C-alpha cells in the first residue's frame, strides 16, 4: 500500500536537462533537506523537495508523554526558537483545561518569546547571508556577527533557565523559572547592544548593491499563493498580508503591548528581510515594555510539578497557536481525560512555509535557490517534526 518514492535519482534528465541533487547533505540545506532540481543550464525548471530526514514522530511522542513531560520535549521541534513550541503546547493544554495563568508568568512568557524571536532572527540573518555569500566571504562575516549577538541572548536564557538551546521554561499553568536577581538589567544592556549592532548589519547589507541584486525580485510569493499554501509569519507579511497572531489573536498578554506589524508588499526575498529587520526592533521594544511592567506575584497558578501525572485535562479538544519567529506554530490537542493527550498535531510553521518552495523555484537560477531557501528560514526540526 505504501507507495515508494518515485524520484529519478541519477542520470541526466534528457535533452539539455540536468538532474542535480541538492542535499540531503549540502552546505546550504539548513539541516537535512534534499531538493532534486532539474536544470536547463543554470535555470531551474522543476524541483522535487524531499523532507523527512529529521523526522522523530513528535506527534506520536506527544501521545506517549504526559502533559508534564512533553513541554520539555516540545522545544525539540523547532530547536532554533525552542521557547515558541513549548509555549504553543502549554497554551493548548491551558485552553482545553481552562487553567488560569498568573500575570507575571504571562509577562515572562512574552519576554522569553520575544527574546527568542531576536535570537532566531539573528541566526536566520547569519545563515541566510552565508547562503548567499559563502562560508569564505562576506556572508560568513555577517554570520559571525549575528552569532555573536545571538550568543548574548542565549547567555540570558542560560542564566534564566540553565540551558542554552532547549529550555523547558514553560509548564502547564505558568513558567518553571522566575527571573534571577539582576537579570532584567542584563537584558536591557543586551538589548541596547543588539539594537546598536543592527545598524551594522544594515550597513553591511541594505545599501549593498551586491545584496540587493541577489534579493530583490527573487522568489516572489504572491498573496494568494501564500494563503493557499498556509505560509505564515514574516513570509506572509512580506507578501503583503497584515497577519500577526500577536495582534489577530492576542495570547499571553500581548494585548498589553504596543507594537507595529511590518508589512511589505513585494513578496520577494528582500521584502522578507525588511520585515524581519523591523521585527528585531519591535521585539526589542516589547521586551523593554514587558520588563518595565513586569508585575509581582507567583509565576505559576499550579503547584510545582511533583509527579508525572499531575496535570489532568478534561475531555475536549483545542487548537492554540503562537506567532513564532517563523510564523504560526500551532498545537492541536485532543484530550480524553487521561494525563496524556489522545491525539496531538503539530502545525509547524516551517513545514507550511517550505511547502511553497516547489511553487516558486521553477524559473530561478541555481544561485537563487539557496537565497530563496535561506529567506524562507526553515528549521528542519520543525518541518519534519
Amino acid at each position, binding site marked *: *500500500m*505504501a*507507495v*515508494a*518514492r*518515485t524520484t529519478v535519482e541519477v542520470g541526466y534528465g534528457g535533452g539539455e536537462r540536468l538532474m542535480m541533487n541538492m542535499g540531503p547533505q549540502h552546505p546550504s540545506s539548513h539541516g537535512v533537506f534534499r531538493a532534486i532540481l532539474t536544470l536547463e543550464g543554470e535555470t531551474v525548471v522543476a524541483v522535487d523537495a524531499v*523532507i*523527512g530526514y529529521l*523526522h522523530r*514522530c513528535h*506527534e*506520536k511522542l506527544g501521545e*506517549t508523554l504526559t502533559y508534564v513531560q512533553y513541554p520539555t520535549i516540545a522545544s525539540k521541534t523547532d530547536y532554533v526558537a525552542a521557547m515558541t513550541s513549548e509555549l504553543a503546547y502549554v497554551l493548548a493544554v491551558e485552553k482545553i483545561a481552562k487553567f488560569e495563568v498568573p500575570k507575571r508568568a504571562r509577562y515572562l512568557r512574552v519576554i522569553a518569546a520575544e527574546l527568542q524571536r531576536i535570537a532566531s532572527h539573528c541566526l536566520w540573518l547569519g545563515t541566510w547571508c552565508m547562503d548567499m555569500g559563502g562560508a569564505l566571504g562576506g556572508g560568513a562575516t555577517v554570520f559571525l556577527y549575528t552569532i555573536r549577538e545571538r550568543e548574548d541572548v542565549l547567555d540570558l536564557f542560560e542564566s534564566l533557565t540553565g540551558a542554552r538551546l532547549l529550555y523547558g521554561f514553560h509548564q502547564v499553568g505558568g513558567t518553571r523559572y522566575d527571573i534571577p536577581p539582576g537579570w532584567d538589567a542584563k537584558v536591557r544592556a543586551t538589548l541596547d547592544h543588539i539594537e546598536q549592532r543592527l545598524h551594522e548589519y544594515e550597513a553591511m547589507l541594505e545599501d549593498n548593491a551586491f545584496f540587493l541584486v541577489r534579493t530583490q525580485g527573487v522568489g516572489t510569493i504572491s498573496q*494568494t*499563493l501564500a*494563503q*493557499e*499554501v*498556509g*505560509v505564515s509569519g514574516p513570509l506572509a507579511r512580506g507578501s503583503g*498580508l497584515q*497577519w500577526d497572531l500577536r495582534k*489577530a*489573536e492576542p495570547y499571553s498578554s500581548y494585548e498589553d503591548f504596543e507594537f507595529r506589524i511590518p508589512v511589505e508588499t513585494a513578496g520577494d526575498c528582500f521584502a522578507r528581510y525588511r520585515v524581519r529587520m523591523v521585527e528585531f526592533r519591535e521585539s526589542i521594544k516589547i521586551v523593554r515594555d514587558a520588563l518595565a511592567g513586569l508585575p509581582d506575584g507567583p509565576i505559576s497558578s499550579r503547584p510545582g510539578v511533583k509527579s508525572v501525572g499531575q496535570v489532568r485535562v478534561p475531555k475536549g479538544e483545542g*487548537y492554540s*497557536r503562537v506567532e513564532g519567529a517563523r510564523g*504560526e506554530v*500551532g498545537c*492541536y490537542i*485532543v484530550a480524553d481525560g487521561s494525563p496524556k493527550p*489522545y*491525539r496531538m*498535531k503539530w*502545525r509547524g510553521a516551517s*513545514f*507550511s512555509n517550505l*511547502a511553497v518552495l516547489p*511553487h516558486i523555484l521553477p524559473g530561478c537560477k541555481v544561485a537563487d535557490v539557496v537565497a530563496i531557501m535561506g529567506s524562507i528560514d526553515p528549521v528542519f526540526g520543525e518541518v*519534519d*517534526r
Partner: protein
Amino acid sequence: MSLAPAAAADLIRQTFGIEPRVEDRLVTVPLAREQWPDFGRFARETLGCLYLNFLSAIDWKAEGIEVICRVENLATGVAVMMRTKLGAGELRCPTLVDVWAGANWMEREAFDMFGLTFDGHPDLRRLLLGDNWELGPPLRKDFVDSGHVPYR
C-alpha cells in the same frame, strides 16, 4: 467577503443542511465524506477561507479515522474546522489539493502517518517516513512501537 462566524454558520446551514458548532470565531462543521471537496470549495470561494492552517486526521479506534482540516479567512478572522468521519476501516478520502495548494504536503503526511488514500491527489508519495519503513502507519492507535531499548 466579510462574514461574521454566525452568518457563516447560517450560510453553511442553508447550503449544506449541516448544523455547525460556533465557538468564538471557530466554526466546526461535521461533514459527510461526499461533501468534503464541495465544502472545501464552498469554504474557499463563498466564505473566503483562503488560508490553510493544517489538515490532519484522528484515529478514533473502533469508529475509524476522522479527517480534520482547519482553514481561515484572514480578513474577517473566521476559521472553519472541517471534519469528516470516514467510518470504520475506511481509508479513502477525496483530496483538497485543487482547492488549497498547501493540502499537497499535508495530505502526503496524513497518507504517511495514517495510511489514508486521498483520491485525486496528484502526487501521493511518502513525505516523512523513510522508504524502508515497514511497521505500518505510526499514528494509528493500533501501532505498537518497539519500546525503549537502553544501551548496555
